[in-house]
């Protein structure tokens, strides 16, 4: 059985319908409060703009960061935020903050009894459709960076970029699931989730700024380099195949570990008294 319980075409269609329903419910929930809905959209756009200005401010001071030119750093920045918004729309908040809250209050009970793969449901229950309003300008920004780089890359490089971006999302899913699952024993894993969130943000800088132990840590042990650096580098330099393979293998390992950890955690779930 696959960890998300999707085994056949009928299963895929059913899960597709469920995702559509969850998207619809999420939008309707936000729309239930009119001022909130419009303020949320405005807030997301401001967040995106502030990040961009922050990065520009850095480059008023320096021309390069390590081996990275301004345009390459822009690519890294755009790639990081594409990944960040994609996880933000989908599983990030659901796992990192939603799951511990449900374990603490016992609200997970009503989801355990649903005839759906529980991990699928708790990962995607609240799809943040409002974040699409930040994601779309980020996507536009990425295309603008491609233009600045004169589209000086091959189709193979683009394919590797997409695969490595997908790998980044899976890696983030695995790590966030590992962190969130600790709540089955600690009841509240908010602290750990915040630590990881802050660590993850390091991934938007070229990791060349680190040296020695830290560089080794972020490349080999907690490979934040997978999030944005590796995909963006695929577009402007030749990555070694063994390293690409290493990235896929490590991500696969993290994912397998996270699934096992989740199963173990669920077995330890104690609910809360009514």
């Amino acid at each position, binding site marked *: 059985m696959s960890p998300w319980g999707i085994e056949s075409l009928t299963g895929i269609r059913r899960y597709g319908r469920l995702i559509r329903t969850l998207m619809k419910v999420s939008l309707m*929930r936000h729309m239930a409060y009119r001022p909130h809905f419009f303020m949320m959209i405005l807030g997301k756009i401001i967040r995106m703009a502030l990040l961009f200005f922050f990065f520009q401010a850095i480059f008023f001071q320096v021309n390069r960061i390590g081996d990275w030119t301004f345009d390459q750093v822009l690519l890294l920045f755009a790639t990081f935020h594409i990944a960040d918004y994609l996880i933000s729309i989908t599983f990030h908040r659901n796992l990192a903050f939603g799951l511990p809250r449900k374990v603490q209050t016992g609200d997970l009970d009503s989801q355990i*009894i649903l005839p759906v793969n529980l991990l699928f449901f708790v990962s995607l229950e609240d799809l943040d459709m409002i974040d699409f309003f930040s994601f779309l300008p980020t996507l536009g920004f990425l295309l603008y960076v491609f233009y600045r780089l004169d589209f000086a890359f091959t189709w193979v490089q683009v394919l590797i970029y997409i695969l490595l971006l997908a790998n980044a999302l899976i890696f983030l899913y695995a790590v966030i699931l590992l962190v969130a699952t600790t709540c089955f024993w600690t009841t509240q894993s908010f602290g750990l989730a915040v630590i990881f969130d802050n660590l993850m943000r390091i991934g938007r800088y070229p990791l060349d700024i680190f040296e020695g132990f830290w560089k080794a840590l972020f490349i080999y042990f907690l490979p934040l380099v997978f999030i944005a650096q590796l995909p963006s580098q695929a577009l402007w330099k030749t990555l070694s195949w063994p390293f690409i393979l290493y990235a896929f293998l490590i991500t696969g390992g993290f994912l397998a570990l996270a699934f096992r950890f989740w199963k173990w955690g669920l077995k330890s779930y104690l609910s809360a008294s009514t």
Partner: protein
Amino acid sequence: MNGRENSFQARAAVAVQDLSKTYWFLEKEAGLSGSLRALLRGKKVFVEAVRQMNLRIQSGEIVGFIGPNGAGKTTTLKMLSGILHPTSGKVEVLGFVPHRREKAFLKQMTFVTGQRNRLFWDLPAAEYFQFCRVMYEIPEVIYHRNLHNLIAMAEIGDILKVPQRKLSAGQRKRCEIVAAFLHDPKVIFLDEPTIALDLINARKIREFIGEKGKEGDRTILLTSHNMADIEQVCPRVIIINQGKIAFDGPTRDLYLLKGFQKQIRIVLEEPRPANAFSGLGQVREMNGPEVWLEVEPARAASIASHLFAHFPVKDIAITDPPLEKIIESIYKTG
């Protein structure tokens, strides 16, 4: 292992063998210093919520599952519905092992708790019903037929478009029960469904459960502290205390337990002294011509005939002892 189990279940809708559940928590004394001590070197306290429980419920039965707070009722229900993994022992519901969470099992089961709300807080109940249709893959025709019938039974037709946060607790609970029955579950676990509801809402929910139970092929296990729920809905009752079953039998049999007397209330044409009733039963209360007697259940009918023959009786009624009293006594004796 996938599919239905055939080991010890043998046609029972619910079968439980030597079921136990132990959990732990960190003990904390009052105050900030207590919190600090618990944080640094908190003492683990283990609680045996359910102990070596054995139980069989046949398909179509409606069973009341009662006990004092902390007796293990909800923990048992959560193990039966697959929410909790047992510490030891076996559980089968409809031939499935609940905590394996097989889709075929989950589609035939529902669990409603009176103290939690699973509906979309910001949206009307109608949206949650649609969500259930997709989640349980209910065919369109069956969905509309069930929804129509359930809305009528639960009397929620006028609140379908109101966001849940604007409804009263009773209205929300009725919406939730409709959602729980939309997919025609075969096994229904109801954990205090009438808690904190006013008399009218509690009655409506009781009637709804009773109606559903009459459909024959449904198995309902209901916990409640409200004895009216048990008396009016459940032909069978299981009393659990300190994680163990203290009584399991027809609800009527509770009234026949040794030590519990029938009550005879008589109103006479004129008052009589208490000693006039000696040998018939114990005089519990006298209020002028109104007398309350406690008598052996087996002798109740003959004593009533004797009273008619030898006293100027204006009115007479034989009643069971209050169920609360019987159950309280079982709680105390364990």
